[in-house]
């Protein structure tokens, strides 16, 4: 790694740690004020009013005590509306602050927090009384919900959604971007760093998943530069000859391989290059064994890319 690269890495790491601290906001010591204000609305009277009013008190409310005599003088300014994707109206949800802000039952104001998504979903999830037909009813992009691998823990989408979210994502029912940030997709589909998607023992067990196409491997991984590179680096060298030491469980692999290849060519290419097969399956060299099956639509392919045909039929791809 050269010096510029290390500076890039260091800079990115520094930014990653520094930016949050720069953005950290002030916090109000609710506990020390609990004795003076028994009701949340004593200060947050605007919560139930017009959303434009905002939830914060006027500074004059604070200055009534913090005048430098009764209490220490302070400087405080209404921070204004938070950058938020949530269009949440408090007024229709008038059933006590602690219902959402202290779902655990701790009514100490110091322990109040912003509601977790599950609190909302307890009423607004599908098949509940107040289900939301669209996430965008409340949310504008972008938040940080993530899909969980364990569907039984996903109160909104339900079991097995992870393996069947394609139609929903493409159709926009529901609209993913209403609740999910883009990293929800890339944390899995960015196949080179999706360390959370597969279990940690996956390298020892992935062959059954790959052969069975339980998930679409190619939606995240490139066969050549991911699967094949790793296989080759670990010693599983594809050759394409009559002698196939890797396939040592087949009496005469050369006779079995046509069926295996037709059934699951995607697995073959995770080790074998095209030239491995062209040693025999080329129209211009070698044994000239045609690889085309019944109903092969050569003209449809050649209309779109003749170079592909030329690999075998003239010995060059152009």
């Amino acid at each position: 790694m050269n010096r510029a690269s290390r500076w890039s890495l260091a800079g990115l790491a520094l930014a990653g740690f520094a930016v949050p601290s720069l953005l950290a906001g002030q916090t109000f010591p609710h506990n020390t004020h609990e004795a003076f204000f028994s009701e949340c609305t004593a200060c947050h009277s605007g919560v139930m009013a017009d959303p434009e009013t905002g939830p914060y008190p006027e500074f004059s409310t604070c200055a009534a005590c913090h005048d430098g005599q009764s209490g220490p003088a302070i400087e405080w300014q209404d921070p204004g509306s938070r950058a938020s994707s949530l269009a949440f109206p408090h007024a229709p949800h008038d059933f006590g602050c602690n219902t959402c802000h202290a779902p655990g039952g701790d009514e100490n104001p110091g322990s109040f927090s912003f509601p977790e998504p599950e609190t909302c979903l307890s009423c607004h999830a599908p098949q509940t009384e107040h289900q939301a037909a669209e996430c965008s009813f409340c949310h504008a992009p972008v938040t940080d919900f993530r899909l969980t691998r364990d569907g039984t823990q996903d109160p909104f989408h339900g079991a097995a959604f992870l393996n069947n979210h394609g139609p929903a994502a493409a159709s926009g029912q529901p609209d993913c971007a209403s609740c999910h940030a883009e990293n929800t997709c890339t944390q899995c589909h960015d196949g080179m760093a999706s360390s959370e998607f597969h279990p940690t023992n996956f390298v020892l067990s992935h062959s059954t998943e790959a052969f069975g196409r339980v998930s679409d491997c190619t939606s995240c991984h490139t066969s050549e530069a991911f699967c094949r590179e790793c296989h080759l680096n670990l010693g599983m060298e594809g050759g394409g000859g009559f002698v196939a030491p890797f396939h040592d469980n087949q009496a005469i692999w050369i006779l079995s391989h046509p069926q295996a290849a037709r059934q699951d060519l995607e697995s073959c290419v995770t080790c074998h290059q095209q030239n491995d097969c062209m040693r025999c399956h080329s129209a211009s060299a070698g044994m000239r064994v045609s690889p085309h099956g019944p109903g092969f639509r050569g003209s449809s392919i050649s209309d779109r890319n003749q170079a592909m045909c030329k690999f075998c039929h003239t010995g060059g791809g152009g």
Partner: protein
Amino acid sequence: MSYRTPLVALSLCILLLPGLATAQGINGRARTYLSHLQIRDMVLDSVPEGTVSGEGVQRTLPDGTPLTCGEEYCQYYRSGPELGVIPFLVDLELNAWTGITGLRAYTHLRARDHLGDFRVIWPKMNEPFEALTLYVEYGRSFYRVKAGRQWQTTGLGMYNYDGGSVRMRLPHNLDVEVYGGLSLVRGLNESHYTNLISDVESLFPREDAWLGGIHVRFRPFPQVAGSFTYQREEAAGSDGLYSERIAATTRILAGPITLDGELKFDLATRQTNLAKLAASFPLDKGFSASGEVRTYTPFFELWTIWGAFSPVGFNEVRGRLDWIAPSGKLSAYTYGSHRSYEETSTQIPGSLSISDESWRWAFGSRYSILTDLTLSAEYRYDDGYGASRHGGDLSVQRFFGRSSYLALRGTAFQTFSEFRVGSGGVIGGGLQGAFPLASAKVHGSVMYYQHDQIDRPSLLDLNQLRMNLSLEIPIGGDPGLRGGGN
């Protein structure tokens, strides 16, 4: 095509946005990921053919080692030296509102380094810096324009490219999006003409490709949604295509029943890559069920010759049943599938033919012994084509509030390879946990897997030690959901 210099410059500009955009705010996250993997590779070794008794291609040494013999040598695989690597990734995602209504910038940057032999991890581990996503978006109520490095989600899956997209929200819940730009290889984040492919494929793509398409989403009724996609990838320097495909999807909410349909079609080979129908629905007494039928044929881009080998697909039926107790403390599920491959039209002697169907079945359960203590278990049986496996997982997980947990996990399974001699047994276990650190979250695991060969000498040492540690720091809170700030 190299974008490194402009990408770095643009990325640094984006990093400066927080200072410029605090009025409107930013959010995002920084994630540092550290891992350690210890594994051994495989080495092809050989002995002179004359020293091995027996005849034929496949022979066995007295100790059980299977050999594949040619005229001069018999070859076999054994373990190579131990390889260890510690990859180090830093991801930074920022979503910045600029202060101009509707104008937003988003970036996902990555820096990486490693100690040890990076070959055993992912491609690009020696690539110190890259931008996975980097775009500027201007959106109003009826249209959205994006420019830069971005991902496109359609019925064909996710594609990323350097270019632009325009999305129009038309009346009657009709969305039309047109997109195009320099295509990036899926899963690589690189254009086609890249040494990452040419290093492992001698017939690599000689040209980059332009990606273009149109994605239409419609929702005529609240309960019915669908999409149609046409997309092509065209070689940048010639008139050849790398792909030309269409896709259609639909999702229908019929009362409590959710119906999904999906179709992917390759116009070049005129093959249906995927046709799928799925349904999920709740039943009485805490039960819910889902079922699916699909037919699948692999898709290959036209810079390869693989499509000319007439690959066939398979048909599959899947089913799943879930149950959760009224108390919510106990849940259980089972799922299974049957897959049958289409006729390959190859002339294979009967004794040499291989299986053309497979079964999969699993069941599992989760039990909350105490409020914060959960026991979960799963057993899987997979009698597959090419490879099979059966075994299970067991874990005990203790939660400490919402963001903290400690789990003890164990696994045991056997694997069977159809195309290689012998079976393998794996027993593994370790600890996994997470806890908050101020507003950040720390996640880590230590797992060890002991692999033993069955029916053959343990010439192949596939034992693994894996350790992961990640630190994730939210930036600017998570608007709307996580709150934060004041």
